[in-house]
């Protein structure tokens, strides 16, 4: 009885993990692999370089998870440096980081 149970359990786990694992088809950007994630941040930075809309950039970065946008960009910069991205890529990423650092939503609210 026990050997059969153990054998079945083992076969079931192997089947479920290796042969027929659950397939994720409706994922969100926060689960992207780090290189795709970095490219997503890079696209946001490239778009920001043309649009100059820091709020839109923040909305785009928010899709990558609950971390502060600046932290997401900093991680992307670290990945880009580690993987020797081109200078122009690093430049636009830095430009986005600077934009985020200097952006303060409350600054637009003027006191009477």
């Amino acid at each position, binding site marked *: 009885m026990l050997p059969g149970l153990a054998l079945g359990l083992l076969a079931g786990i192997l089947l479920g993990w290796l042969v027929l694992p659950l397939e994720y088809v409706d994922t969100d950007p926060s*689960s992207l692999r780090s290189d*795709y994630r970095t490219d997503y941040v890079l696209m946001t930075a490239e778009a920001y370089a043309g649009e100059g809309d820091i709020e839109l950039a923040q909305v785009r970065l928010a899709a990558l998870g609950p971390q502060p946008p600046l932290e997401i960009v900093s991680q992307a910069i670290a990945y880009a440096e580690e993987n020797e991205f081109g200078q122009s890529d690093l430049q636009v990423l830095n430009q986005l980081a600077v934009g985020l650092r200097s952006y303060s939503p409350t600054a637009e609210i003027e006191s009477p």
Partner: protein
Amino acid sequence: MRRASLLPFVLSCVVGLAGGLYYAWQIDPVEYVDNAPDTLRADFKADYLAIIAAAFSSTEDLPRAQQRLDLFSDPDPARTLAALAQQRLAGGHSESEARALAQLASVLGEQPTPYVQTPVTSLPSDPTNTPDRRTPRPASRTPTSAAVPTRTPTPEAARVFELQSREIVCDPALLQPLVQAIILNTRGRNLPGIEVLVVWDSGQDHFFTGLKPELGLGYGDFTMTEGVTYAAQIAGSTELITDLSAEACVDTGGEVYLGSWLLVFQQRSTP
């Protein structure tokens, strides 16, 4: 006797298998944390495409945009982008976003044959690969060696279009009188993302081709008001098409309704 002694073993195997599958699928399933963009949910996928277009709009780096689009294995990304532009516009997204999507669709639509790609940074399609961005990215806007025919996107204003035909369309199926435009490139292929200006005595408006892909990527239209005379012009072109107004048409039952104008433009080959 032998069969009877096997039964508990087989049953326990089945129970174990079920337990194992339950554990592997429900309790501790394989976690996919390193996903590729093509696994994204449809709405995130649409956002991703919009960011690709926005980035392209800023950098004009077509090879890079194509590499990004290739991640989705879409056989006709131009059509997908044009359809998405229409959806985003209808969904209240910014016009600039829709324009960026239409612009990328337009540029892709102009490329029926693969152009020669310069050695740009590559995105991995194989999950085991790491990104190879070590080759400095060539600036797409600066001319490269004449031996390597890279493509520089043509500014819209530099395009020259000629009116091929203008005709009244009496189609009772059209609920409103329209200025319909079909814009073709030099090879007679539909050209999406082209801006058409419409002016009249007291105002002006514009529309883009490619936002109704079901009617053709080079199609765009504008609804006319009865009694108003319009003029149409492709943005950046000098040719003005005047005297466009909702003309009376008569259907088979003798009922009068307002007809539309169909303008067909074709891009002229420039030396």
